[in-house]
């Protein structure tokens, strides 16, 4: 089964297939392309299906949760493996595969974080840098270029702590507040860029690049925040890692 044309992943595609079981064309049906309208056979997953096409929604940041759930329930009713308990092995297998992907898609599209990742992946933006960080290869790199001014402030702070640990306490707190403020600002910026992207009907690639950059920066801020908290606790005499 090969789609008739390689679809543009970002666009709503109208790909036509034929049923693997009865060869009837899969088109125009309410459950197309999940289930053959003619013979009710669950179709295997096609390469081109994304979380968005699976749930019949547009790849934008604003998602209507009620509509998503309605579609998810509708698909579950028709495709769940319980409906194919007595069907052929192939039908059961297709149902399990399709339903597991639909479950995954439903989870992704309702989580802002996972939705962001899905849209970026769809547009191949902010490539998931696979680093050999131990046997787990898929950790996305958080080691993007740090904001210069923050990195400098961080080094100064550490020097200050070495010079006079007593006096540095207040500085550490201030720095922590700065980081928090910065993280909140970044979050606001991400939301703004998401709105721009949605307003452009998914055409604004620059917005995606900016979102990707902001996400890397956020990851950097988070790891710096952990270091600062550790430093503050050390100054306060709390043994580090005591809560681990």
């Amino acid at each position, binding site marked *: 089964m090969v789609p008739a044309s390689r679809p543009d992943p970002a666009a709503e595609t109208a790909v036509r297939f034929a049923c693997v079981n009865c060869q009837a064309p899969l088109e125009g049906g309410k459950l197309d392309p999940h289930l053959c309208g003619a013979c009710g056979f669950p179709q295997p997953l096609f390469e081109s299906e994304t979380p968005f096409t699976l749930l019949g929604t547009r790849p934008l940041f604003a998602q209507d949760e009620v509509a998503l759930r309605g579609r998810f*329930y509708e698909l*579950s*009713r028709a495709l*769940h*493996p*319980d*409906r194919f*308990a*007595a069907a052929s092995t192939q039908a059961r297998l297709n149902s*399990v*595969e399709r*339903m*597991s*992907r639909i*479950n*995954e898609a*439903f*989870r992704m599209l309702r989580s802002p974080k996972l939705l962001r990742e899905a849209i970026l992946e769809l547009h191949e933006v902010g490539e998931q840098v*696979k*680093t*050999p960080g*131990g*046997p*787990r*290869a*898929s950790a996305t790199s958080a080691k993007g270029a740090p904001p210069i001014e923050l990195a400098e402030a961080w080094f100064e702070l550490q020097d200050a702590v070495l010079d006079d640990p007593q006096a540095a306490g207040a500085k550490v707190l201030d720095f922590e507040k700065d980081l928090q403020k910065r993280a909140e600002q970044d979050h606001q910026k991400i939301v703004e860029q998401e709105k721009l992207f949605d307003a452009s009907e998914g055409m604004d690639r620059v917005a995606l690049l900016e979102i990707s950059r902001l996400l890397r920066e956020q990851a950097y801020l988070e790891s710096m925040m952990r270091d600062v908290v550790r430093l503050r606790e050390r100054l306060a005499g709390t043994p580090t890692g005591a809560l681990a």
Partner: protein
Amino acid sequence: MTSNTHEHAAPGGPIVGIDLGTTNSLVAVVRNGVPEVLKSREGERLLPSVVSFVEGKPVVGYQARRNKVRDASHTVFSVKRLLGRGFEDIAKSSSQLPYEVVPGEGVIRVKVGEQLLTAIEISAMILRELKESAEKALGETVKRAVITVPAYFNDAQRQATRAAGRLAGLEVLRIVNEPTAASLAYGLDRQKQGLIAVYDLGGGTFDVSILRLEDGIFEVLATNGNTTLGGDDLDRIFVAQAEQDIREKYGSNILNDINLKAALIAQGESVKIALSSSEWGVFQVTLPNGLTYERPWSRGEFELQARVVLEATRAPCLQAIADAGLSVADLSDVVLVGGPTRLQVVQQVAESIFKRKPNTSVHPDEVVAAGAAIQADILAGNTTDLLLLDVIPLSLGIETYGGLMAPLIPRNTRIPASARETFTTFMDRQTGVDIHVLQGERDRASENRSLARFKLKGIEPLPAGMPRIEVNFLIDADGILQVAAKDLRTGNEQAIEVRPSFGLSDAEVERMLAAQAESSESDKAFRKLVDARTEAEPVLRNTEKHLEKARKLLSPEEFARVDACVRALRAAMAGDRPEAIVQAKYALNAATVRLAELVIADSLRQAST
């Protein structure tokens, strides 16, 4: 609920729903769209999950339960607590059981009389009894079932339940979570919609599930629980106190007596039940030294201690609500399930957790079996307007370098589910990787449950971090996990279906099935024998009662015939051939027709004079 005409007409016969409980078990089936509990062969709706060995043969149910104290060394109960567990898992709780638990290869075994049996084998005996009860009630062979388990059962415990089903001659079409099954029965009438919590406190397990009910869809949002907390633990309050008192007075040796242990547990249960309807109860046992231990309990005193035990249900409830992304106020109903939820103190604790009066309208003992029957009917294709969307209770992942667990599928993920992730090597020129599949929520691999281990070989010898190994997880609607690992460079692939570490291997189940084919023949024969004896006994007793009268009423020849028949039946009953007993019984019946007439006539005559 739709239900078409060819119900049960499906090849393979009816599919029953079974609630295999710690304390009691039930079997139910959907007939004409309505779930119905089928009576056991003892004529009861509940089958106590107790197995007693009478003359070496298993007897299940109330009859076995009576032997808990009378014949403690040949009677086992609460085996669900041992199902799918390793010896270390139960080392703590086994000391509370009056039977001996023996570590074995992979699986633990229970010592019953001279026999060593696994929890799977004992559970299979209970399931077989349910299967036969259902067959008697339905008048047809039952080969397929849906069996419920606590939602928080891990993979090994589920696999062990499945193996028990197979051993009992049942094809287990689905393992369903108990609180989810309960929700199916609760929401069957479609009147109830919205977000609900099911608080399920069984004999030995606690589960909580949060669900969304909408137009026939039962969507589990989150589940949590504790597989070692149950109503039994409330009985323990009395037992622990009694043990302490007895030890102080008579020393601890006396407590090693197995019959005393059983008596203490039985008393604990009955005092708990007494206190549910009255303000006072008395715990009373006769000690092996002939003395009596007696202690009065007030309901208030019990409830105070019970609250401490039941507090342990709070954290799982709050975690489940949080995992569902909800707050307590979002819930529109809290459904109580399980026998112990009849206790007021349990209802009060549930109320304090959920900040609302819990719903006690469902039948706490029967609702799970009813739900299992509904799921069975869904799988049979009869019920098409209801659908259960369930989740996995515990995260699944693999071990990575440094002994850490990398979760691939987080807990509360809807099933079926799949996940892929790419891993790499840690050492230069490494040509194989160990894939260690884990289940649990802890960061450290060693603190989670090990489900399986396999090796992916033939990796190209490259510098560390270069190879790309894709690990694929697929969980079907049954919660059965398949793991595949693939070297993306060479295309070399290795896949396994996850098998339990603490359950039984396929080979072991096969071996047991084979052994059982023989023993089930002898079991059946034994049952026939007991049945024949039971039926013959009143006939014999009745005749013996009138034997003196018969000597007067009958001719010598007639009397001699009756007397010979009585002797023949007595002899047959002492033997072990059921056919002989049945024949002798018929012969005696035939021989006493005239005697019966004469006896009646005689008594009428006496009455009229």
